[in-house]
């Protein structure tokens, strides 16, 4: 052993020869968990995914990820009741991320800067009829067009938009926003035929040679209830009122307007007539916390001076006045009459008691099942008649724009599969990234940006939009409040905290991987991962 010092027998070496990975009993693995926002979104948006791009200021990329699922972000950013924010993990830290505001910002940027949808990559040669140009029909048309199908929308009304135009007041959704987003869908090559009511769907499909049809006619018939009334009582339904707001002839409702109902439609009507100078009183048989309307809408209505009589039913309607009976909740929370009556001045009564679907176009179609006035569809959105799919308000579900958009997308995916004699298989859902999966230490505190609200006087008298939008700086701020639940956002924590240098950094956008030769399985990376994108799993023995 020459060339070695006294008593030294081995050449010096590096500890890399010692593969400490053999110590491991559990191994860390990277995974994507389902963020609660995505999980809660009825339109199936990848919210965390588009916020990821918005965080870096790449708004166009964020918008492009967004519109992979939902072609109406500017509309959605105004009218969606954002269940995502209710589910947001950040709500347990300070307050939820203002997802809806950022969505609106992206939608408005797209309109301002004229971003267009990518042209379809393929042409399938298949023709599909979409009945109804509401949110569900437009969404289905968009997704089908993206898949290369030729889509024709038949709309009974004079303009596209459905309930977005004839149900949602202007102060919540300015029409130029709606028009811009509809036009962008039409620019993809979707044909829109207005004033074209489909009288018989089976006949229309046959006559025009469509390969499949998607029905989304909505629910436009106002529900009636029996109210004993004198000859001169003026009773009208809410849908008609809201629809006539769109036209030149504003509805003649008089000064004292009673709105009967406690849903969002009732509140929309009350706020709209307030803006026309009338004095609306909402009459609802139960209490505020039982009302189906969203609480923020009730709050905004009250701020604007809308009167609401809780626990009241209309017993009698006459010319110029109505009689209401006070109610009391019983043990089970149901309203019961008390025998106490009150008379209110009323020039007209607007019934906002829900809506029914006009199902006349389905007559004679075989295999359909209709329950409680809605069309039954299976899990793939197909009715009992092969090739006829349906969605939106005409099928049993929650009736919101967002749900309708989600139906449109889901139906499009299934129609596409059905046309190819296949079955659409959604990707398996990832496990939920609940708050317990996060390490909230790493997120610094920051309040949600509050969108500017229109001054109260202007709100009472004009149809200007009530909520303003975010500007670029606070939209970025808001996006960066996202915790990125369950999905790596490249914070480098795992790379930094590994005592064994067993995490390999793959570079921007490529995330990380583990070096299992040296990983001892201590689990520090998983514990210190802020967003829960690492999981420890037992080693196989």
């Amino acid at each position, binding site marked *: 052993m020459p060339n070695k010092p006294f008593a030294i027998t081995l050449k010096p070496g590096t500890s890399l020869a010692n593969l400490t990975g053999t110590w491991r009993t559990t191994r860390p693995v990277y995974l994507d968990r389902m963020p609660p926002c995505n999980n809660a979104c009825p339109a199936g948006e990848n919210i965390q995914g588009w916020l990821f791009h918005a965080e870096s200021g790449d708004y166009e990329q964020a918008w492009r990820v967004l519109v992979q699922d939902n072609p109406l972000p500017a509309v959605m950013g105004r009218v969606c009741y954002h269940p995502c924010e209710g589910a947001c993990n950040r709500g347990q830290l300070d307050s939820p991320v203002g997802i809806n505001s950022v969505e609106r910002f992206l939608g408005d940027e797209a309109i301002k800067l004229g971003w267009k949808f990518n042209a379809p990559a393929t042409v399938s040669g298949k023709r599909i009829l979409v009945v109804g140009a509401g949110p569900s029909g437009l969404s289905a048309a968009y997704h089908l067009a993206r898949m290369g199908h030729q889509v024709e929308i038949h709309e009974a009304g004079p303009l596209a938009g459905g309930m977005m135009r004839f149900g949602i007041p202007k102060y919540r959704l300015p029409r130029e926003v709606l028009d811009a987003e509809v036009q962008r869908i039409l620019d993809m090559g979707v044909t829109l035929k207005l004033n074209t009511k489909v009288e018989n769907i089976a006949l229309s499909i046959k006559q025009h040679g469509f390969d499949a049809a998607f029905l989304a006619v909505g629910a436009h018939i106002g529900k009636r209830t029996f109210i004993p009334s004198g000859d001169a009582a003026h009773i009208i339904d809410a849908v008609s009122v809201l629809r006539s707001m769109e036209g030149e002839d504003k509805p003649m409702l008089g000064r004292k307007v009673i709105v009967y109902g406690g849903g969002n439609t009732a509140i929309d009507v009350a706020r709209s007539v307030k803006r026309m100078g009338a004095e609306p009183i909402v009459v609802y048989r139960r209490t505020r916390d039982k009302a189906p309307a969203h609480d923020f809408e009730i709050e905004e209505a009250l701020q604007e001076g809308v009167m609401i009589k809780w626990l009241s039913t209309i017993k009698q309607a006459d010319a110029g006045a109505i009689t209401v009976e006070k109610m009391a909740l019983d043990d089970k929370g149901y309203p019961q009459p008390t025998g106490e009556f009150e008379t209110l001045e009323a020039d007209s009564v607007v019934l906002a008691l829900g809506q029914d679907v006009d199902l006349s176009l389905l007559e004679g179609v075989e295999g359909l099942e209709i329950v409680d006035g809605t069309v039954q569809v299976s899990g793939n959105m197909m009715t009992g008649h092969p090739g006829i799919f349906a969605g939106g308000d005409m099928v049993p579900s929650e009736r919101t724009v967002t749900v309708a958009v989600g139906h449109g997308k889901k139906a499009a995916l299934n129609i596409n599969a059905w046309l190819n004699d296949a079955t659409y298989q959604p990707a398996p859902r990832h496990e939920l990234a609940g708050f317990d999966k996060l390490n909230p230490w790493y997120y610094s505190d920051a309040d949600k940006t509050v969108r500017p609200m229109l001054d109260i006087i202007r709100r009472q008298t004009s149809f200007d939009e009530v909520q303003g939008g975010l500007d670029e700086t606070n939209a970025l701020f808001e996006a960066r409040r996202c915790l990125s639940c369950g999905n790596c956002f490249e914070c480098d924590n795992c790379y930094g905290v590994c005592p064994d*240098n067993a995490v390999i950094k793959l570079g921007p956008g490529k995330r990380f991987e583990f070096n299992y030769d040296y990983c001892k399985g201590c*689990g520090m990376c998983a514990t210190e991962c802020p967003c829960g994108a690492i999981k420890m799993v037992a080693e196989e023995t």
Partner: protein
Amino acid sequence: MGFQAVKFYQTGTFTVGNRLLAPDERSLQSVETRSNSINSGHRACQGCGEALGARYAIDAAMAESNNQLIAANATGCLEVFSTPYPESSWQVPWIHSLFGNAAAVATGIAAAMKVKGRPEVRVVAQGGDGGTTDIGFGCLSGMFERNDDVLYICYDNEGYMNTGVQRSSATPPAARTATTMPVGPEPGNVFGQGKNVPEIAMAHGIPYVATATVADLRDLEYKVRKAMKMHGARYIHIFVPCPLGWGTASHDTIRMARMAKESGTFPVFEAEYGEVTGVLKIRRKIPVEEYMKPQRRFAHLFGKNAHPETVARIQAIADRNIRKYGLLEEEGN
């Protein structure tokens, strides 16, 4: 100490790096080109706080000295797990002599470099709390007193861990070790003994003294870099939890360090020429109980034969630290 200078809302600057920060605003540990002073394959236990703390500190010292660095090491876990004959994990010129003389060896290296006219070569000495607060204390005090141009880094895991968890003068009161068993009326380590070496170092009036934990990476890197910019005797005391000796889960090492700081048990501060110049404030204050409960070395204080009065005494020590160093944000700030 401006660690929160970048107001960034997703994770602040609490994470190691972040794709949204400019590269020069990220920590050194987030960079692929960090020197990895201790390489993979070392034999430290799973979740070793000392292995992590040493890489954090020496990588920062390497970066600040332009990779012109020599390290002297006392006997201890760090030496044993990194250099089993004939392997070494060190990717830096490194020397081990005895348990008690790391400070003196480093002093010698610094003197030699001066004689050789190599002022760019910087010297660090490092050891555990045993080699620093007990066995090497005489040499350390001498190095301070002579103001030798050495940065001494102590990795404090509060005991002699690789020899089987014996008590050191840095072991906290009431903790169980092999030599302070949880028996008798006052179980575990005694109160009122032990050394606060950062304060003793400050009493020497040396240019720089700082404490840090493995839970506050940016603070740690800032302090090592700052120390390396200075000359003369400097001392950094890094709190490094030990899963083996403390009886904690291996994945909780950073969490334990964080809780030590957040409870006030381990005050994080820096001092120049004997005066405290900055403290790392507590972000979310917790009671010491929350920090102690996950540690088996304190298990005898909880449960069936609990010692709430002992926990209260430890809380009082933490409260005194908070008062003394001003660890809480002032009201209204």
